[in-house]
């Protein structure tokens, strides 16, 4: 294949070899996988001279390519899932994946059906036509690699207002570094509603390379609350993508809490295709050591009267690096758009770094859009106030950091148990910080 010849680095060559070896073994139509890999191979691993990847040089960060994880044995599955999920107290109906393969699935509540992705791909499930609804994501390297390698996942079809919560739990447990490519398609019919939790976990000390994509196609007047947690191990290189294609009068929220991974890149594409919808994208990132976490967000307002809210908080300790790139595009037809985007970072050490790049691109004249980005230290006067009341410095700092992150973790979250579980993650991070 001529396009493969354009690949240069050993990692890119290794990816091409891996794809050549794997494509006939992966479920579904090989042709669409080849198209996807072709889109990746044309440009290769993105690097710092590619604007969207300027602060997360994937070519430099991905020197080694891990082989695709093999399907785990029953014993491996049992071991991997023996650790209680962070959201256990919220008692969700859970579909668990181990090493990128479907492992266990609870019965789904009324209003939602689940079809394993491998099965859906093999049989050419009709809902798969809705994959790739946000076309702008198509050429993205992480998304294209996922499309080329996607092994398993689930198609969730939400047809009614689902009571309780549904959880997707991804655990990478194999002892050697492995790559996983999971894809979730959530099709929410008009007037339906779902609360979806998503967790990613892996062991410390193993350089896993999970690449996950969750695509939402949301019908008119539907409601979606999505919470994602990155609790991957300290050597993981995690790529994740959320796409959301929203109809009219939708209420959509996605929230990402990063408490793990050596390197993480979380991408969100949210497209307002129908009028009068509300979409919120939030995130809280906690970094220490040499961790690097990138959040890249593109919000496309194509329809009138939509409201988007984006709030990201980053607490950066050690030599951690946070990246926020957020762009709100307002198309000429998207009059009465109301968009607000905020990224705030608190640097807790001398060596932490934060890169903020908020952008607005507005082609309509009757809109309200604002963006802001801040970067600072904990306020000395606030610390003194708390210490003057008897709180030792670490406790005073923890209280201020918790309140700083809390806004992005809990704001707009209409679910106390999930909020408590997430704040538990924040508290554990603060405790580890000492």
């Amino acid at each position: 294949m001529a396009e493969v010849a354009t690949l240069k680095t050993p990692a890119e060559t290794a990816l091409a070899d891996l794809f050549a070896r794997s494509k006939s073994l992966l479920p579904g139509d090989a042709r669409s996988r080849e198209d996807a890999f072709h889109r990746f191979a044309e440009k290769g691993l993105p690097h710092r001279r590619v604007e969207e990847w300027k602060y997360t040089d994937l070519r430099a960060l991905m020197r080694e390519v891990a082989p695709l994880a093999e399907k785990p044995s029953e014993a491996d599955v049992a071991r991997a899932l023996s650790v209680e999920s962070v959201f256990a107290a919220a008692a969700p109906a859970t579909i668990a994946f181990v090493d990128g393969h479907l492992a266990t699935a609870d019965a789904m509540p009324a209003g939602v059906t689940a079809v394993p992705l491998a099965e859906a791909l093999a049989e050419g499930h009709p809902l798969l036509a809705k994959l790739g609804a946000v076309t702008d994501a198509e050429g993205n390297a992480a998304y294209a690699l996922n499309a080329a390698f996607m092994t398993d996942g689930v198609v969730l079809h939400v047809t009614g207002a689902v009571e309780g919560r549904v959880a997707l739990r991804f655990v990478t447990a194999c002892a050697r570094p492995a790559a996983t490519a999971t894809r979730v398609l959530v099709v929410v019919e008009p007037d339906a509603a779902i609360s979806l939790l998503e967790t990613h976990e892996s062991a410390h000390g193993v350089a896993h390379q999970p690449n996950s994509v969750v695509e939402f196609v949301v019908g008119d007047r539907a409601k979606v609350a999505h919470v994602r947690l990155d609790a991957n191990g300290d050597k993981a290189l995690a790529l994740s993508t959320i796409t959301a294609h929203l109809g009219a009068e939708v209420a959509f929220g996605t929230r990402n809490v990063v408490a793990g991974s050596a390197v993480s890149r979380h991408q969100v594409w949210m497209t307002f295709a129908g009028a009068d919808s509300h979409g919120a994208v939030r995130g809280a990132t906690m970094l220490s050591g040499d961790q690097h976490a990138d959040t890249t967000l593109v919000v496309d307002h194509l329809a009138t009267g939509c409201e988007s809210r984006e709030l990201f908080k980053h607490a950066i300790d050690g030599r951690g690096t946070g990246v926020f790139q957020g762009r709100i595009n307002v198309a000429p037809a998207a009059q009465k758009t109301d968009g607000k985007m905020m990224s705030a970072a608190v640097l807790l050490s001398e060596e932490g770094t934060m890169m903020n790049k908020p952008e607005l691109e507005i082609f309509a004249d009757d809109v309200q859009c604002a963006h802001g980005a801040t970067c600072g230290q904990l306020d000395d006067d606030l610390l003194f106030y708390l210490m003057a009341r008897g709180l030792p410095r670490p406790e005073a700092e923890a209280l201020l950091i918790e309140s700083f992150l809390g806004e992005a973790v809990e704001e707009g979250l209409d679910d106390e148990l999930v909020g408590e579980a997430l704040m538990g993650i924040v508290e554990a991070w603060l405790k580890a910080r000492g």
Partner: protein
Amino acid sequence: MLEIKNLVAEIEGKRILDGLTLTVNDGETAAIMGPNGSGKSTLSYIIAGKEDYEILDGEILLDGENILEMEAFERAAAGVFLAFQYPLEIPGVATMTFLKAALNAQRRAREETELTTPEFMKAVQEAAARLEIPRDMLKRALNVGFSGGEKKRMEILQMALLQPRMCILDETDSGLDIDALRVVSEGVNALKSDKRAFLVITHYQRLLNYIVPDTVHVMANGRIMRSGGKELALELEASGYADYKAQEAA
């Protein structure tokens, strides 16, 4: 209780305290009055342990122990409490969470058992009732959206809960209307005891009608220029600080 000896302090090379000496005894309420810029607030911050200042000389003894070596939280546990002139707003920190954290941190530092939640709730509610603090105020983030008077009442509530030995009130009367001044003063007076001392910093004699001092000290030019009984406050109210400023200039 509190002995300050020949305290000399600077901030960014500017001398703020210049040989200040002051003693406050157990059970005493001492007032410090003085013109703007005389160093009154700096003195309160230095006693409480703010780190912005360079201490060039002198010592501050609390019950004979030099507290200058201690961090702010250790001084708090030792019994120092500063009611701030401008209490800080802390968004996202629930008032009750803060109060409990502060109270239990001090108890831990003193090797006392921590209060249980019911014990804590009872203590807060009793203190809040005395200070006419409505319950919904306790449910909000600390000082966020509070009026000036509410913030000052919250300071006194903290004082009542933490039961410090040495209470410093930095211009507690500023921003208070007459009713709030009465409530706050009654809250302070209820805490007076022979085992506790107060250092009341104010510009005006008005506060001292409500919190009656045993001693009044005039501060100017970074030191105590004159000391006397409560009648000194009345004299200052009549004559102003001009004499002391003149001494400063000279």
